[in-house]
Each structure stands twice: as structure tokens, then as C-alpha cells.
């Protein structure tokens, strides 16, 4: 499984999301690759992704994708991010 985090430069807020998504996976006992990328390279980075975590501003630019696109409001809210990862990748 693969999670891609997307922001404008591919280093700042997507980096925060990557770090916190990895913590979420660990706490949920799930395993997935997590890659941070800028929105300009979303096509290449996310063509095999299951989940894209991003900010509301990038949803339109990400466009059509097979991945589930989830908007994170507060990038430092581990509860919000863990719930999103669980909803997308957890066994229910």
C-alpha cells in the first residue's frame, strides 16, 4: 500500500503529513510506503497510490485519481490523521 502526501513545494506541509502518517500507520499496526511530493509531480508520484493526504487547496489540481483523496485540516492533529489513515486503509 502507498500513501502520497501533497503540498506546493513537496517539502514542508507534505513532509509534516508524511511524518504524522507514518506515526499513524505505526499506531494502527498497518504498513504502507509514505511519499511526500509537490503537486506538480502528483501524476508520477501518485499513480500507484492508495491514498493521497493533502490540503483543501490542492484537491482540484490533483484531479482524477484512483487514490482516495483525503483533506487534512490540521496537519498537527495526530488524531485527525490517524482516523483518516484508519478509515482508508484499516480493516473494517
Amino acid at each position: 500500500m502507498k500513501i502520497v502526501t501533497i503540498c506546493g513545494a513537496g517539502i514542508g506541509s507534505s513532509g509534516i503529513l508524511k511524518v504524522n502518517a507514518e506515526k499513524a500507520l505505526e499506531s494502527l499496526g498497518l504498513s504502507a510506503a509514505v511519499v511526500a511530493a509537490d503537486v506538480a509531480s502528483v501524476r508520477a508520484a501518485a499513480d500507484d497510490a492508495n491514498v493521497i493526504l493533502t490540503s483543501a487547496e490542492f484537491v482540484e489540481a490533483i484531479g482524477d485519481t484512483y487514490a482516495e483523496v483525503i483533506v487534512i485540516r490540521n496537519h498537527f492533529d495526530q488524531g485527525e490523521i490517524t482516523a483518516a489513515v484508519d478509515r482508508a486503509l484499516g480493516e473494517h
Partner: protein
Amino acid sequence: MPLPPLPDTAVVLGAVVSTWREALERTGEALVASGAATEAYTQAMIDLVDEHGPYIVISPGLAFAHARPGPTVRRDGLAVVTLREPVVFGHPHNDPVSVVLGLAVAEVGAHLESIGEIANTFNDPTVTGRLAAASTPDEVRAILGVPA
């Protein structure tokens, strides 16, 4: 040392600004003053918001200002700017902003340790408010756990 140092020159407390653009200008000036970035980096931070919107407001009250690594960065650096009056960036959930955290990274990849440390620090929801209330650079450094 995961986070870059935060010298006094990179801390601006109680800045008086009336727009998000001015808030990012103060942050860029702090990164220039500490020797972390050139003036072109300031414009690059502003350009990212002009291009993509206010997504850098990544949690309530906090803007995480940065641009891409490259020749406008002299060395890894951090800046903290607190605003006397919070300003609106236009973010649907996390406005208004009272603290701007500026980051300059010299090269991609090496920055992930810093990003991880920033996440660890700010996952504590009290940090932004404590930074906004800080009255000395020493206080800011103590909250962030960084040296001068």
C-alpha cells in the same frame, strides 16, 4: 541536532503587520538577518501562496512559511515571527494566524529530520499559543527546544 539553531536575529516578537504578505516579508527578513537565506527566498515563499493559496496555514493560528531548497538558501535556518494582531491568510479553518514559522533548507532529503522534529514539537496543541505569548527569544527557544 535535528532542528537548525534559532539566533536572536531570527526571532521577531509582536510584529505589527496588516496582511499575510507582510507577515511573510517579516519572516523572510528574519531568515536573511540570520544568514539562512537571500532576499529572493522571501519572494519565493510569497509566490508559493500566490500560486497555491493559503495551504501553509497548516494548523490553527500557525503558518509554516517556506520555499523550495536551492540557491536562495544559504544554509538551513529557522525563523519565528509572532504577530501583535493576528492576520487572515484566507484559510477555511485555521485562520487567523498569530505565529509564522519560517524554514529554509539547503537540500532536499536532509531536511526530513527537521520536519520530523517540527511535527513532534507542534503535535502538542499548546505550542502555537505559547509561542504567540512568548516575550523573549530565550522563551521561544525553550518552547521549541532549539539552541541560539
